[in-house]
């Protein structure tokens, strides 16, 4: 016992432990288990993305952007962190093509920036992101221009109205109408103190320019500059140039403002698109890029404009690769920046030479879409560049010289589908092994077990290392381990596989703050929500992405490797679902076309007998052709990967009703107890049916919504209900789980507002009556009317519109459910416990003792938002979280929740408190400290006591 001689060691040890523990004490728990990926979306247009000084006095500029999801904001170019962001437009955004024509972001004066979306104009403080003023026009805005001298923002509306708004106050300074409302305004140009508005006169096919006095708004002159044919289109022209540009199919026409002089540039039919750049009045830079079927090319030209004459000066070389250009004026010269996947090159406008080339350390992950760059020429002649490159995969990278400084995963804001992948199930072979041991005979089972144990010895060093780490983790903040698959005892690690609009599949890790684990290109330029049939689990750690085109991508969900790519010929309207073999590990996907009497498909087209077995008792259901209802089929596979479909039932809505949504119980939705125990110890038996589907239909003509609860095997209607006075134009969302559903709609009745209705289904209205629930087997075809479920409903008024509903799921379904609500008005994700949404709550009276014992409390029609407890997102501001997905963890108490849309928010929630895991509040240090203290005390006291005892004996 050398320790006894050195008690000082204990003090030193205890002291060192205490001092190291202080780092992890006061951090907020909320920000440990959850994560938010704050996103803008992909930069829409190079003219709406720019470096700009946030405030006049400040050095250093921020990167401003307007995204395809209509989010504007500022990014710190140093580290890629979000400075601020705001959302334009309340509605959802679907198509990005049209957006760049109706939404843009411009620099303004005094550290302000101006945003335009459709009819709304807003001026923002560039440093803080606060709105200075907002203005809503009556028609779509055609162009805006800031007149610095006059302190005005001049707005041209499509119809020809021109309004000048005072920058400081947002008041109208003057307004005028150009062309009696018949002309279509396109863009402004400011030349000297003459403000030109270009319009086209559709009736006379003329291009018209009107000169407006910036001070008074008086229309000084009107020119008819040339012919603007039917096929002509305006091209966005930099406002400082004295020209306006328009195009037809094979020519780009540059009209010098106020003259009939138009220079036509022939544009090859292979040219995909071109952009006009300018930084001074006399330089025009046009970049072109062409995509022929086999190769992409790009080039650019410099033009000078002198006395209204446009002349070509130099050309940047023609290259067989996609590169994008940016023009910048740093004060020390005008430079064009050319970016492709491998390098950044700088060209000088004066000398047409390449002045500098920076080779990137590795290829950019995708081709660039557009770039904004700042080039600085130092006094010693050195060139430095900073370029924000938007890539074809939807992400943005910032490159400084030859280094990639940061990458923002902006593509995730454009996700069109998302699904959880269970990382744990890959390792979860133990269960099967044990099962195998059970079934085999004693000797082989024993041998198997021993060999398994010997095999598992290889995990021992890792386990010891991990043990050490977890001990150290008690004393300090857990060091983030690498994202490689490490043991995850509680099953918190799940990957969310997202398919983005840009044709990429990305997986993020819920246990590692939403970091991207892998990403893979599907080779499609654009995937919209309608283009994707689904993301399917396909066995252990494998996901299938199925597109409407029939392409099937088999991806290893752990590593992101593409395993197989194939295509089956399916009709675009087909529904795709997975079938699992009940006896083996085989899986298939099957596609069921909407059109009657067309055969279905299955893939992989092998093991028909197995599939026949799997489908023998199965009813497949999908939306009927034209979304008129639900149709059920039985299927029989034949050789060649085809399925013979036999319609078994269909449920069609009346003419005036249309399908709003169809929801089914989650794939993993165990019911732990088939009854609900009441206060008097009697039981209300739940209506248990795994084949439930809730169809919500709306009838705009009668402003009603109809709810149909169907059995998807027999097609029987189990329950219907109607809500009249509903606003069918607002979101109607629903979620169904266990024996209940919850839906939300906007009611125009006396209780006007968003209503949240919950309906529970029981096997029978009487207590202790299990109806047919205690039979060994149950058939959906054997459902006499007397066995239809008994439903109880209660409605609540909710203060905010709800755009999405979901339910938590846990491993065994013992934990109470929580209903998850996405409330965009609040910018948060709320959870309401199912105990609150309980239709048996007593109405208009206090609960009796028995009801209290059952956990019921008095019904209150107004369901307020309990921000303290209900908000899963805590104080975070979630932008555009529209869809919620949940999955169980290995802990019964915990469900993993991820919301996506624009931002991605993930958290773990315990609807019934964390009853099976020690909370963060548990003081392990105190426990270990007291054990150590007792140990040390014993070591000290033992010799003393012994000495005393011996002394006593001698004294006797």
């Amino acid at each position, binding site marked *: 016992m050398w320790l006894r001689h050195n008690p000082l060691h204990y003090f030193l040890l205890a002291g060192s432990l205490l001092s190291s523990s202080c780092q992890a004490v006061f951090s907020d728990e909320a920000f440990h288990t959850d994560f938010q990926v704050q996103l803008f979306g992909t930069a829409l247009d190079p003219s709406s993305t720019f470096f700009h000084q946030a405030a006049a006095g400040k050095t250093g500029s921020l990167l401003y952007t307007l995204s395809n999801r209509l989010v504007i904001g500022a990014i710190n170019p140093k580290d890629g962190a979000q400075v601020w962001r705001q959302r334009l437009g309340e509605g959802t955004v679907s198509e990005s093509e049209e957006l760049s024509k109706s939404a843009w972001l411009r620099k303004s004066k005094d550290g302000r920036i101006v945003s335009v979306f459709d009819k709304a104009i807003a001026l923002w403080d560039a440093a803080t992101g606060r709105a200075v003023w907002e203005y809503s026009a009556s028609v779509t805005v055609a162009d805006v221009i800031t007149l610095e001298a006059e302190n005005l923002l001049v707005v041209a509306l499509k119809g020809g109205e021109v309004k000048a708004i005072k920058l400081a106050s947002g008041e109208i300074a003057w307004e005028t109408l150009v062309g009696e409302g018949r002309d279509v305004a396109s863009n402004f140009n400011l030349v000297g103190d003459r403000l030109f508005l270009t319009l086209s006169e559709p009736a006379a096919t003329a291009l018209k320019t009107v000169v407006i006095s910036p001070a008074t708004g008086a229309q000084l002159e009107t020119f008819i500059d040339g012919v603007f044919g039917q096929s002509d289109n305006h091209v966005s022209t930099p406002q400082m140039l004295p020209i306006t540009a328009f195009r037809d199919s094979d020519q780009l026409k540059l009209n010098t403002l106020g003259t009939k002089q138009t220079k036509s540039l022939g544009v090859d039919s292979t040219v995909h698109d071109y952009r006009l750049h300018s930084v001074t009045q006399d330089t025009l830079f046009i970049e072109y890029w062409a995509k022929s079927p086999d190769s992409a090319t790009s080039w650019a030209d410099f033009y000078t404009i002198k006395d209204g004459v446009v002349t070509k000066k130099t050309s940047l070389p023609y290259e067989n690769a996609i590169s994008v250009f940016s023009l910048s004026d740093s004060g020390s010269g005008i430079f064009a920046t050319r970016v492709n996947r491998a390098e950044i090159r700088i060209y000088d406008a004066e000398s047409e030479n390449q002045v500098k080339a920076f080779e990137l350390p590795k290829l950019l992950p995708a081709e660039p879409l557009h770039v904004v760059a700042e080039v600085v020429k130092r006094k010693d002649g050195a060139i430095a560049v900073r370029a924000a490159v938007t890539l074809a995969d939807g992400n943005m990278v910032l490159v400084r010289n030859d280094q990639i400084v940061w990458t923002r995963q902006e593509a995730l804001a454009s996700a069109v589908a998302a699904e959880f992948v269970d990382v744990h199930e890959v390792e979860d072979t133990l269960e099967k092994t044990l099962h195998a041991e059970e079934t085999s005979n004693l000797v082989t089972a024993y041998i198997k077990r021993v060999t398994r144990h010997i095999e598992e010895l290889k995990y021992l060093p890792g386990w010891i290392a991990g043990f050490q780490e977890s001990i150290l983790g008690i004393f300090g903040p857990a060091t983030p381990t690498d994202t490689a698959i490490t043991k995850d005892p509680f099953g918190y690690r799940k990957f969310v596989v997202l398919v983005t609009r840009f044709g990429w599949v990305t997986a993020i890790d819920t246990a590692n703050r939403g970091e991207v684990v892998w990403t893979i290109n599907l080779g499609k330029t654009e995937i919209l929500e309608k283009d994707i049939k689904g993301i399917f689990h396909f066995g252990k750690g494998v996901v299938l992405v199925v597109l409407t085109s029939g392409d099937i991508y088999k991806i290893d969900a752990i590593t992101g490797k593409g395993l197989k790519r194939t295509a089956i010929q399916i009709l675009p309207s087909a529904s795709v679902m997975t*079938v699992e073999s009940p006896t083996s590990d085989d899986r298939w996907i099957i596609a069921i076309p909407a059109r009657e009497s067309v055969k279905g498909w299955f893939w992989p087209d092998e093991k028909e007998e197995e599939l026949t077995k799997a489908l023998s008792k199965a009813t497949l259901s999908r939306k009927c052709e034209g979304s008129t209802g639900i149709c059920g089929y039985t299927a029989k596979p034949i050789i060649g990967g085809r399925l013979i479909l036999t319609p078994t039932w269909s449920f069609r809505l009346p003419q005036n009703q249309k399908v709003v949504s169809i929801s089914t119980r989650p794939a993993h939705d165990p019911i732990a*107890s088939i009854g609900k125990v009441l206060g*008097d110890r009697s*039981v209300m038996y739940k209506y248990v049916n795994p084949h439930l589907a809730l169809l919500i239909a709306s009838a705009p003509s009668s402003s009603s919504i109809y709810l149909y609860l169907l059995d998807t095997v027999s097609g029987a209607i189990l329950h219907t209900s109607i809500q009249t006075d509903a606003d069918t134009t607002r979101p109607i969302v629903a979620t169904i789980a266990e024996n209940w559903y919850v839906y939300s709609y906007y009611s125009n009745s006396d209780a006007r507002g968003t209503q949240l209705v919950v309906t529970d289904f029981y096997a029978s209205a009487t207590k202790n009556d*299990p109806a047919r629930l205690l039979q060994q087997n*149950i058939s959906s075809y054997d459902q006499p009317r007397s066995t239809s479920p008994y439903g109880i409903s209660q409605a609540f008024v909710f203060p905010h519109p709800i755009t999405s509903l979901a339910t938590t799921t846990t491993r065994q379904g013992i934990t109470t459910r929580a209903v998850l609500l996405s409330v965009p008005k609040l910018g948060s994700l709320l959870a309401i416990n199912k105990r609150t949404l309980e239709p048996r709550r007593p109405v208009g009276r206090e609960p009796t003792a028995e009801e209290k014992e059952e956990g019921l409390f008095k019904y209150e029609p107004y369901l307020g938002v309990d921000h303290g407890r209900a908000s899963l997102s805590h104080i975070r501001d979630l932008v555009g979280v529209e869809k919620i997905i949940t999955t169980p963890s290995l802990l019964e108490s915990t469900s993993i929740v991820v919301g996506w849309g624009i931002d991605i928010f993930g958290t773990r929630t315990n609807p019934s408190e964390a009853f099976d895991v020690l909370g963060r509040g548990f003081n392990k240090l105190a426990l270990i400290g007291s054990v150590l203290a007792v140990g040390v005390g014993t070591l000290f006291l033992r010799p003393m006591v012994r000495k005393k005892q011996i002394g006593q004996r001698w004294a006797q």
Partner: protein
Amino acid sequence: MALSQPAWVIDLKTSPSSRPKAPSNVADPPGYSTSGSSKKSQKQITPPTQAETDDLKIKKAWEVALAPAKSLPMNMIMMYMSGNTLQIFSIMMTAMLFMNPLRALSSVGNTFSKFDGEATHGRLLTVKLAYIGLQILTIVIGIWKVNAMGLLPTTRSDWLAWEHAPVPLETSISNFR
């Protein structure tokens, strides 16, 4: 009493006089009379008949048998007062309510053995039965208490955990996208 008995037997059977004989040489204090006590002792000297002893034994046995009845109301009040929550005191008291009667029941023979005799044996049976009945009554109170505490599986909900949903004969696969 034909048999002559040894002196010590007689001494044993007759209760000793309440007071040791006063030494004759010491006179009693004035006013003290020994006549009352001497009369009594004279009476006790005549031994009770066997029938009388048996009656007495049965009487005693009844007293023992009915003792639990006296504690019944007290037990009931205590059980009522201790509430139906599962706490250490109510659990302990309820446990005692079972333990004591069971212990008593297991030693019925012992309890009544000193009253047992050839003559009393038959008459003791009813006494024993009454005793057993009363102990069972105490247990019934205990059962009532346990039931009130919700520990008896008498309701439907107690068997819910062993009830399982039926296995559906069909499967359904759907996608409504």
